[in-house]
């Protein structure tokens, strides 16, 4: 890889151990993906939940954070993805004091780098939305696909260590969606159905992601007659990234990248009502007892929070069911201020800030609470959570709420 004098100096340790480690890590990744050089980034976003970090990851963060202040400070604005635990709700969710102690250590280490503890996967809706052409180091697949596809920004999936490295050096290896040649559509999908709600936009993303099945495929989706809006694109992209490891989609009229010229040469695939229904039906379990209803993954917007509260309409959640709503700390504050949190809690819902369920010791929560059957309107969550021992069902927001009230899958 071509390195500037400044990058060579960082690699030689002249800017301290954290930046030396970061540069060494970035060169290993860059060479693996044949990056020609490093590209400056304007934001980094670190996924660092303690379930993934474990004791080993926390010790790593603490060892870098022990460097002198000038050597450990991040060089670009750096945000965090959801955390493993919300200190206000963890006991109610069956999480332990030992988990909280790990969380405190991780937070202390991240703060020592100068990281802004935003704890959210909807930073593109709530903190600092990316702009067209901006190079980023985003650390959540849903954030990456939304930034690339809706804003026309440029980011790879940057896992926790790589996002931290980008924060410390202010740059990232130039490969994948940073390059024009990796942003051209490789597959074509023709929609013959319009999703009816957020769960179906997620299902559609899941179908396309599963069909693409690779980070290096870029689907072009035709037949979307009007922009579905921010929350629909959020669920659509998050599910596509989850099922397919997809980092970029093109919807003509939505995606800023103009590259749809040779679409006729791309293999075509039609998606209709039967495909959406079959996707949802595969997770069906009508009449089963519901242990937990989850609104999360991605974090809810303020609009979604209000929709859950409105749908509950003051009715009580069933005594054998937990209804969990997870959002960012910023949106939680807004919901508190507007009385939305109070309405949700009066119905018996748990409103958590800064966690996103699957990143929060989901296996341990299932064990502690005896949870098995989960209903959600997030296609991303139904894809992930099976490995943690849950039996997930995908429903509309309204049917999730009905299920939480009756205690049975609606």
């Amino acid at each position: 890889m071509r390195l500037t004098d400044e990058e060579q100096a960082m690699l030689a340790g002249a800017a301290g151990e954290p930046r030396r480690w970061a540069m060494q890590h970035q060169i290993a990744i860059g060479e693996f993906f044949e990056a020609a050089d490093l590209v400056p980034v304007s934001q980094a976003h670190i996924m660092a939940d303690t379930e993934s970090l474990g004791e080993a990851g926390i010790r790593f963060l603490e060892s870098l954070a022990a460097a002198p202040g000038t050597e450990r400070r991040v060089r670009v604005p750096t945000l965090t993805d959801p955390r493993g635990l919300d200190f206000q709700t963890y006991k109610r969710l069956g999480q332990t004091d030992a988990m909280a102690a790990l969380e405190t250590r991780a937070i202390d280490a991240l703060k020592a780098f100068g990281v802004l503890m935003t704890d959210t996967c909807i930073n593109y809706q709530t903190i600092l939305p990316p702009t067209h052409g901006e190079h980023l180091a985003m650390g959540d697949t849903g954030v990456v696909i939304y930034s690339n596809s809706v804003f026309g920004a440029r980011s790879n999936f940057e896992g926790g260590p790589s996002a931290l490295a980008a924060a410390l050096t202010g740059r990232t290896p130039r490969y994948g969606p940073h390059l024009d040649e990796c942003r051209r559509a490789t597959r074509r999908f023709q929609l013959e159905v319009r999703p009816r709600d957020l769960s179906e936009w997620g299902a559609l993303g899941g179908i396309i992601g599963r069909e693409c099945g690779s980070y290096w495929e870029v689907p072009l989706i035709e037949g979307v007659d009007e922009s579905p809006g921010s929350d629909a694109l959020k669920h659509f992209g998050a599910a596509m990234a989850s099922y397919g490891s997809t980092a970029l989609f093109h919807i003509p009229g939505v995606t800023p990248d103009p590259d749809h010229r040779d679409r006729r040469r791309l293999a075509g695939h039609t998606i209709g009502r039967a495909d959406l229904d079959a996707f949802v039906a595969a997770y069906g379990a009508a009449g089963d007892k519901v242990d937990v209803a989850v609104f999360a993954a991605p974090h809810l917007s303020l609009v979604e929070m209000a929709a859950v509260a409105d749908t509950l309409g003051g009715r009580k959640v069933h005594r054998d069911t937990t209804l969990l709503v997870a959002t960012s700390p910023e949106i939680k504050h807004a919901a508190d201020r507007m009385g939305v949190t109070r309405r949700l809690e009066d119905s018996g819902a748990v409103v958590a800030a800064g966690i996103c369920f699957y990143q929060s010791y989901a296996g341990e929560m299932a064990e502690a609470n005896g949870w098995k059957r989960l209903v959600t309107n997030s296609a991303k969550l139904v894809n992930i959570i099976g490995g943690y021992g849950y039996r997930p069902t995908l429903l509309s927001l309204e049917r999730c709420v009905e299920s939480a009230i009756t205690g049975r899958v609606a």
Partner: protein
Amino acid sequence: MSTVLKCHPGIGPNVTGMALVAKDNFSARYDLDRKQGIFSRPTHALAGQSYAGKILVLDQAKGGVATAWMLHEMKSRGVVPLALVFNRVNPILAQGAAFGDVTMVDRFEAGDVTDLIQIGDILRIDPAAGTVEILNR
């Protein structure tokens, strides 16, 4: 007698071990019970099988970013695959292998690696050279 497969130069140390092969994809968060060291996702082709100390031979990386931390965490407890051999990985698996110092290679010249390697094959991987040698045939 042995067969040598050429691949793109990879990450991590040279290793020799037994292959566990499937035509399926991989994410540490989605697919594994990392405490017990088994594939836990019911729909995974390797559901119920132990991965500790094995060379996993799979198609693609999938899903989220957690694997970038998790390989390091799994290695710290010694319950980790010996190596990862894929047709094509995503950035997260590469980042996780580099951070955790776990051997990983992908992009094979001779075609689909899940066809080229069979369950139980003994493999010697040289990531720097970009080679996987099948020692038993």
